[in-house]
């Protein structure tokens, strides 16, 4: 019999029972919740007259709908205020811990969980948010669910789940100058396509991934969903253990030693079978940027806008969809990406708003000045990241270069709050989606790494960060 994959080792341990000809009853260790996808689930519990089954296994924070300025004041927008207040009331009524707006741990749910040590190797985690895949960086099964499923987990700590297929993406070699985790994952998505991972759970393997910090690994796993995969994961190693150790919710003392011994068993056996495998070479990857309206439409920053033919579109519908994307972006085939005009730069989101991201941005902008034509939003992923930015003196570096730090939240990644890019304007963004209107109706988004965003903010046009390092 073939060995087991990392995914199957964790999955098997969490199957309560299997329905004949149906899904598995799958146990969830931790559920993260936020204000947008939870209210209807709480309502469902009330209608059934039941309580939350395991309140201590739920971690709540307000992030999607919060302002990134003047968070001490009441939220101006009535609907947003109501939604955030509803979360406060629901957590109170059902006895859940909430890292709300005034709390020192508030922030984007996928930044907060790992930095508090709530996320640990071998766990199963869900959240009503597709970027829950982020937590897979710790060697955990983590994926996004809809609100009905949020309610299922609140009611029973279980989910009805069919076992996905297994994919492995291996990238070996050293990353080139100016290439970061974001570029690595944008490259993989450009090769596999925005739907290529649908039906799979992806294991990322090879030295290009294992050489990344935990922040970098989170960036990679975060974007698994952008190739259609429910989630992605990376086998835990010393880098993982060092990150988790000492965090508030991490095991301590003898419990810690026992946990690490168990976590060391979490890897794919050498004879494990994958349903699909991709292998790429790190040397082929340069800083990436997207030119279209899905995350699979990315190219190396020194490249030109490709044609439908270049990317292998062959059906009439595929070509139509490709043309529609270029039309929305107002880009023409054959134009250089470098030097294209930009109006906004956004550094933030669950993909790239951790302390390492801001350190790297600071390194680029230090001693330089933001271009006058650029409106820049630097939005930390959490209150703790914000605090670190000030403690490490990064805030001064940003201020001298003409950048201001905002307060934590999802912000311009999905533009539910006031941080909207105007119609027709171009934004280089460290977030995860360049969909039409994602950053505001009519906004045109180009996804890139934090250092590409920083280099662009300095140059005032799309620029290669490798030239500033």
């Amino acid at each position, binding site marked *: 019999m073939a060995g087991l994959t990392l995914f199957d080792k964790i999955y098997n341990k969490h199957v309560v029972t299997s329905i004949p000809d149906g899904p598995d009853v799958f146990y969830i260790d931790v559920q993260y919740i936020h204000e947008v996808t939870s209210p209807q689930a709480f309502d469902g519990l009330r209608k059934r007259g039941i309580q939350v089954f395991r309140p201590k296994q739920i971690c709540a924070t307000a992030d999607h709908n919060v302002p990134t300025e003047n968070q001490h004041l009441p939220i101006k*927008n009535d609907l947003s205020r109501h939604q955030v207040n509803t979360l406060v009331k629901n957590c109170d009524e059902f006895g859940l811990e909430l890292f709300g707006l005034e709390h020192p741990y508030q922030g984007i749910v996928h930044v907060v969980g790992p930095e508090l040590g709530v996320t640990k190797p071998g766990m199963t985690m869900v959240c009503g948010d597709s970027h829950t895949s982020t937590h897979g960086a710790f060697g955990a099964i983590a994926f996004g*669910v809809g609100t009905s*499923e949020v309610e299922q987990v609140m009611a*029973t700590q279980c989910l009805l789940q069919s076992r996905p297929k297994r994919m492995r993406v291996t990238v070996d070699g050293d990353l080139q100058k100016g290439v970061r985790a974001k570029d690595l994952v944008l490259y993989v998505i450009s090769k596999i396509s925005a739907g290529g991972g649908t039906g799979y759970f992806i294991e990322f393997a090879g030295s290009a991934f294992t050489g990344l910090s935990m922040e970098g690994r989170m960036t990679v796993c975060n974007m698994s969903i952008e190739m259609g995969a429910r989630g992605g994961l990376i086998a835990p190693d010393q880098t993982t253990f060092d990150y988790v150790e000492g965090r508030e919710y991490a095991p301590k003392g003898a419990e810690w030693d026992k946990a690490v011994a168990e976590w060391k068993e979490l890897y794919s056996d050498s004879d494990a079978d994958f349903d699909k495998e991709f292998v790429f070479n790190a040397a082929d990857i340069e800083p990436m940027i997207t030119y279209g309206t899905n995350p699979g439409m990315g190219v190396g920053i020194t490249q030109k806008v490709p044609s439908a033919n270049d990317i292998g579109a062959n059906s009439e519908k595929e070509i139509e969809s490709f043309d529609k994307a270029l039309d929305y972006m107002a880009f023409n085939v054959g134009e250089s990406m470098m030097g294209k005009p930009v109006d906004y730069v956004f550094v933030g989101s669950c993909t790239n708003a951790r302390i390492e991201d801001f350190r790297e941005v600071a390194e680029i902008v230090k001693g330089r000045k933001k271009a006058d034509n650029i409106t820049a939003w630097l939005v930390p992923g959490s209150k703790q990241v914000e605090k670190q930015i000030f403690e490490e003196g990064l805030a001064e570096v940003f201020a001298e270069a003409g950048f201001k730090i905002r307060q934590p939240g999802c912000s311009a990644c999905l533009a539910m709050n006031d941080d909207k890019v105007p119609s027709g304007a171009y934004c280089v963004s460290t977030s995860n989606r360049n969909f039409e209107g994602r950053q505001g*109706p009519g906004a045109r988004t180009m996804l890139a790494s934090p250092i590409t965003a920083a280099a662009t903010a300095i140059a005032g046009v799309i620029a290669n960060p490798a030239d500033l390092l």
Partner: protein
Amino acid sequence: MEKFTTITSPAVPLSTENVDTDQIIPARFLKATTRDGFGENLFRDWRFDKDDNPQTSFPLEDPRFSGEILVAGKNFGCGSSREHAAWAIHDYGFKVVICSFFADIFQNNALNNGLLPLRCSAEFLAKVFAAIELDNQTKIKVDLANQFVEIVATGEKESFEINAYRKECLINGFDNIDYLLSIQSEIEAFEKA
């Protein structure tokens, strides 16, 4: 959940591929705390321009098309996990989405709301689009009990796959939570083991 019965209806064709849930229901409409009323803003930014004028070039606002079936280009429902997308499609009046492949999370969300995500072959999908182009009101029949989809005028049929448990739930309007609550003692035993 509403019980799903056999449906025979004209269909609305949306051939664009990789339609993400941000298009289905833009984030700015996710501020509600109930499940109702999302249909009004379904495909908001494709159906209407900035000044709220209907865009008849978009199939949902094109008077030639109507019906309870949405026919979509491949990778429908990708992106955000927002169940609001399934709520909006269902609330607007669709009972079925036919596509050659769906994004995973959307597929589950649809099933949890009595909306059938019907996966057919790329060839059959092309035939359905062609049939609607030929006759905008051509009828499509979706028979869940017998698991087939048919272009009524030509009699062209294809069978489709669906998990037996999910099918049972749709046909009877069963709810997953009722089932999970019924095995709570088993879940508690699992936790102790």
